C-alpha cells in the first residue's frame, strides 16, 4: 500500500510539473485617463485708439493681441462684456467714456468660439487682435477732445 502511494505521488508530481511547463497565465490591466478641458491664464493687452476728429476714415486700435492656451482639440466659447453691454456673434458694441463728455460708441470684435490647440509649444489662440476696436468716421468726427476709456471682461468658458 505504501508503495502504491509512493507511485501515485510520483505520478501526480510529474503531472503537475508537466502542466507548469507549458501553461500560459495572462490578464489585463485597465488604465483609464481623463483629460480635462482647461485653459491657462489669458494674456491680456490693452488697446489704444488715437482719434483724429478730422479723420475721413474709421479709426482702428493699436496695441497687442490678447491670447490664451487651452486643451488640445476641445471646443471653447468666449464672452465679452462691458457693463450692461454683452457681445454677440463675436462683436461687442460699447462706448468709450470720459467724465462730463459725450460717450463715443465703438465696436470690439473678438473670437467667440475656438478649438484649443494645447499647451506647451502649441500656438496660443488669439481672442482679441490689436486692431479689434473700431470707431466709425462719423463718431470720430463728432467726438469731444479728451481721454476716454472702457473696460471689457473677456471670459473663456469650458
Amino acid at each position: 500500500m505504501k508503495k502504491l502511494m509512493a507511485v501515485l505521488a510520483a505520478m501526480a508530481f510529474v503531472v503537475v510539473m508537466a502542466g507548469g511547463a507549458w501553461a500560459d497565465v495572462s490578464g489585463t490591466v485597465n488604465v483609464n485617463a481623463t483629460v480635462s478641458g482647461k485653459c491657462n491664464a489669458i494674456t491680456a493687452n490693452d488697446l489704444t485708439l488715437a482719434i483724429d476728429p478730422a479723420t475721413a476714415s474709421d479709426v482702428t486700435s493699436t496695441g497687442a493681441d490678447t491670447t490664451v492656451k487651452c486643451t488640445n482639440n476641445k471646443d471653447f466659447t468666449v464672452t465679452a462684456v462691458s457693463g450692461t453691454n454683452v457681445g454677440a456673434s463675436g462683436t461687442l458694441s460699447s462706448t468709450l467714456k470720459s467724465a462730463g463728455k459725450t460717450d463715443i460708441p465703438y465696436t470690439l470684435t473678438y473670437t467667440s468660439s475656438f478649438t484649443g490647440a494645447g499647451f506647451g509649444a502649441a500656438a496660443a489662440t488669439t481672442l482679441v487682435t490689436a486692431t479689434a476696436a473700431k470707431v466709425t468716421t462719423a463718431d470720430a468726427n463728432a467726438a469731444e477732445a479728451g481721454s476716454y476709456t472702457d473696460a471689457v471682461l473677456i471670459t473663456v468658458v469650458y
Partner: protein
Amino acid sequence: MAALAAMSLIAGSVFAATPAGFTSAEIKVNAQVGVSCQEIQKGSFPSPLLIDTQTAAEQTFPNSADELVRCTKGTVFTVKISSANGTALDETCTSGGVGDMALQSSSWPSDVISYTFTCGGDTDGNGRFTGAGYNTNKALGIGIKIAAADAQAAIAHNDYSDTVTLTITY
C-alpha cells in the same frame, strides 16, 4: 427602476450644462481725441463793395460767403485777424468788431478808407467760439462796417482793397 432612470437622466442633463470652469481677463480700451480745426470755406465779400458816400448812417456789408471752419466738438477757439493795409495785427475778432482795418486804393495808395471787421458768430461776444465737431460747420459770421464819417470822407476810386488774414487759435 424606470422612475430612477428618468430622474438620473434629468440630473445628468443639468449637470452636463454647467460649465466646468472659466478663465477671465479684463482689457482696457483707451482713446485719446485730439484737438484741431480745419478751414472748410474761405470767406468773401461782394466785389466791389458799393460804398455810399452820402449816407449819414453806418454802412454794413454782409459776406457773400461766410468763413466756415470745423473744430473738435467743445473746443474753445478764438479768431485773430490782421489787415494787410491797416494796422490791425492778430487782433481778436468779436461780434463788436476789430478796427484798424483799411481799404487802400492801389492807384492812389495814400487814399484809404477805415473799416471794422466783425465776427458775429462768437459764442459770448468776447471772441470765443466753440467747435461743433467735424461733422458740423461753424460759421464765423464775418462782416464789414464802415462808419458814416469814413464813407463821407472817402475819395472816389474803383480799386480799393484789403486782404484779411484770419488765424484760428485753440
